[in-house]
């Protein structure tokens, strides 16, 4: 195996779970035994998945290295590669270049209360950090998850809601945009639900990811609630190709989102030229 960084590792799709009508979560296992055994990654990193005959696309690693042996990524059907992925059946072979990019500074989160604020498919990168924290539960304070989507049907990872709810000192706040019969939880947009919950910024860290408009209001509200820019983290979405800071595509100012990100603190974001 020469060291050409653009050649992916082969992996077999072990399990496909239908999250919503247009989103599936794929669990893949690396074919190369030796590579699989010493493969590790940190929460917040991402990968480039190749579907042979169609192309390569960027997906965050939604699984956590604390549950080894496999990697998971969630795919919303939208373009050529995602449509191709949705057509695959279990046992299919894909290419994976992982892990890429930086990760959440989970060391500095130790002992802090964590607020995960996710929107729709944006929950995928947060889930990696969330499960990582739950696997090292006592390192962290209370874990609060605010997760919203357009409708009940659009909520991902429903199978893990109970596990999250019943984890020690962990609260799960779900919300959907519009009233739906049979829905008992909150109704409303995530940013306004955040204002209702009034999280205490003391010794807290907020991690948010979701559609651009949601992020814009969440960041604004967090500042209003007293969170400082260093306490807020998010992952940025940019057009990516190489994923290793060479193809020059995902730059914001002098930084490359694929290597200097995708995780940025709000302070870092404010330092960047407004071109993202």
């Amino acid at each position, binding site marked *: 195996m020469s060291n050409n960084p653009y050649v992916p590792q082969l992996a077999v799709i072990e399990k496909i779970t239908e999250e919503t009508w247009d989103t599936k979560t794929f669990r893949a296992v690396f074919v190369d035994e030796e590579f699989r055994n010493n493969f590790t990654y940190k929460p917040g990193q991402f990968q480039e998945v190749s579907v042979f*005959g169609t192309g390569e696309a960027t997906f965050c690693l939604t699984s956590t290295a604390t549950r080894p042996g496999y990697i998971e990524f969630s795919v919303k059907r939208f373009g050529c590669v995602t449509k*191709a992925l949705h057509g695959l*059946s279990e046992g299919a072979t894909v290419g994976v270049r992982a892990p890429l990019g930086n990760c959440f500074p989970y060391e500095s989160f130790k002992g802090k209360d964590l607020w995960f604020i996710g929107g729709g498919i944006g929950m995928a990168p947060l889930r990696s950090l969330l499960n990582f924290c739950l696997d090292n539960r006592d390192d962290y304070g209370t874990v609060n998850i605010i997760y919203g989507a357009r409708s009940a049907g659009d909520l991902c990872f429903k199978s893990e809601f109970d596990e999250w709810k019943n984890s020690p000192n962990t609260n799960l706040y779900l919300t959907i945009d519009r009233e739906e019969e049979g829905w008992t939880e909150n109704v409303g947009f995530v940013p306004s639900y955040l204002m209702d919950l009034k999280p205490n910024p003391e010794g807290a860290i907020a991690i948010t990811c979701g559609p651009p408009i949601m992020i814009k209001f969440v960041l604004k509200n967090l500042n209003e609630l007293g969170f400082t820019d260093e306490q807020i983290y998010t992952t940025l979405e940019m057009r990516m190709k190489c994923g290793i800071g060479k193809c020059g595509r995902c730059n914001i100012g002098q930084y490359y989102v694929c290597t200097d990100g995708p995780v940025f603190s709000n302070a870092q974001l404010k330092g960047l030229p407004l071109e993202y």
Partner: protein
Amino acid sequence: MARVGVFICWCGSNIAKTVDVEKVAEAAAALPGVAYSTNYKYMCSEPGQNLVKQAIAEHKLSSIVVASCSPRLHEPTFRRCISEAGLNPFMLEMANIREHCSWVHDDNDAATKKAIDLVAMAVAKVAKNEPLSSQAIPITKKALVIGGGVSGIQTALDIADAGYKVTLVERTPSIGGRMAQYDKTFPTLDCAACILTPKMVDAASNPNIEILSYSEVENVSGFVGNFDVTIRKRARSVDMSKCTGCGACYEKCPKKVSSEFDCGLGQRKAIYVPFPQAVPNVPVIDREVCRWFAEGKCKVCEKICPTGAIDYSQEDEVITEQFGAIVAATGFDTWDPQEYGNLGYGKYPDVITSLQFERLFNASGPTDGKLLRPSDNQPPKNVVFISCIGSRDDEHGYPYCSKVCCMYNAKHALLLKEKVSDAQAYVFYMDIRANGKGYEEFVRRAMEKYGAVYLRGRVSRIIQEGDKLIVRGADTLAGKPVEIEADMVVLAAAMKPQPDAKEMARKLGISTDEYNWFSEAHPKLRPVEVLTAGVYLAGVCQYPKDIPDSVAQASGAASKVIGLFSKPNLESEPTVAEVNETTCAGCLLCKEICPFSAIEPKLLTDRAGNPVKTVASVNQGLCHGCGTCVAGCRSASVQLKGFKDDQLLAEVDALAFME
């Protein structure tokens, strides 16, 4: 990638005898995107279609490829089948491995290789197919029937009975068509007028039927459900509301000309009614011959008319109406036997056509029903009937058989005996074609009971000797030439399309065959429809046939129209063009070249309402899905659903990269 199911059909042995269907199914299984591949003896059969439905459920297939016969035949069948299994009917592609492969290539290996390629192309295309749905188009629940013969009348009556409005357009002054010229009809010897006139009167009195006689269709535009038809109502010079049909005018009219209705044997006046039972029973002034129009004197009819219905100042009136469906029942014309120099038609007066003979028999004919020879008005004794004049003859006439001549020859031979007891009928024939109900028995009767002499052979020459016609022919059964001194010879002239049939076809946007008969959609499976949706055929305009078939086809066409009108509105073609408004540069080249002017400019405005840019937009109702605009669009902004660039290119690539 989609999850594709591939089904290879044996078509009994039609495909399996040349194409190794197992090998094709195997090769298909290895194609990218194929989740399931099998083969079966009769895919289009009930079990075949069930096989598809089960596979869809079991393997969660998203698209289907059926490799069998031509999509033109069974694409609708399989579309219905997969939609019953819950898939969108357009997630289907067919690979034509019968007409384009097994039937046309002997080399089995090459045919199998080609079948594999065709399947690979179909799989590559279906993987890119998207679910399509059609749109509702309003239908004008009014039908137009062109041609007022027996077929036209029957069609109009059936449609009217179903409660829909019909406009029946007839070129001549009265409906009735060819059948009105006949005396009796085979095989029942019903009097033609007795069974036709009541229908004509029904048509005239039916509130849903509007008869436009002495009128012609000038232009047809639009499409199924929304035809705009321009009709020219020619000036009759008689006010129909006032005329009582008393006939005083054509009694007194001084000008006599040869009557088309009597095929030139009889005469009619300048102001005339084609035949007594005419419907509408309102005369018409033939402006070419009428003394008033030609020389500016006379006006006898105006003076004599008790109700003052004559109106010389009447002008042609051109109207345009909306129709949902059109039925062409324009009938036929008889072939001119003058082509045969050796039979002396047109030289010897007593050599006439069967239609003229029918007029001589008819009570309202030129001789008031008495059978008299045109030359000397004497009853003929020996009458020779000659079949296949212009039919079954590649040299001078048409190669096809006109189907009904054998029957009316027998009828004439039979009736001749009734009318002139001591007359003797001779019938020259090649083969007797009497395959209708009661037909063979009828001909037997003419031979045995009425003593008609049937001579199997051709007539080589007719010579006028004095007042006799020497008919020289052969009796191939007796194996010797035969010569008959006849008093009259009747030629069974072939049926041929109307002289303006090609023109009418072009107006209706339908195609014709090499003789100019209108081409039906499918000779066996869709005989009353044509390829253009919304247009149907009835009667002989499609191909020579007798009255029972014409009436049956008329009811068939009517049922198609009623079927079309019974739906609240029409499902538009799902495979129509659509414009990607972000990439469209608004050059509107597509608008220029759209054959159906289905594309209009559309101004896009931003939320605040000020204009952003003009783009093209397709009226899905008018679009027929031809794709001319798509090939013309430089930025590929307009795409044809079902035949998009990426779909067609996928086929090209799939084929290019087959090993």
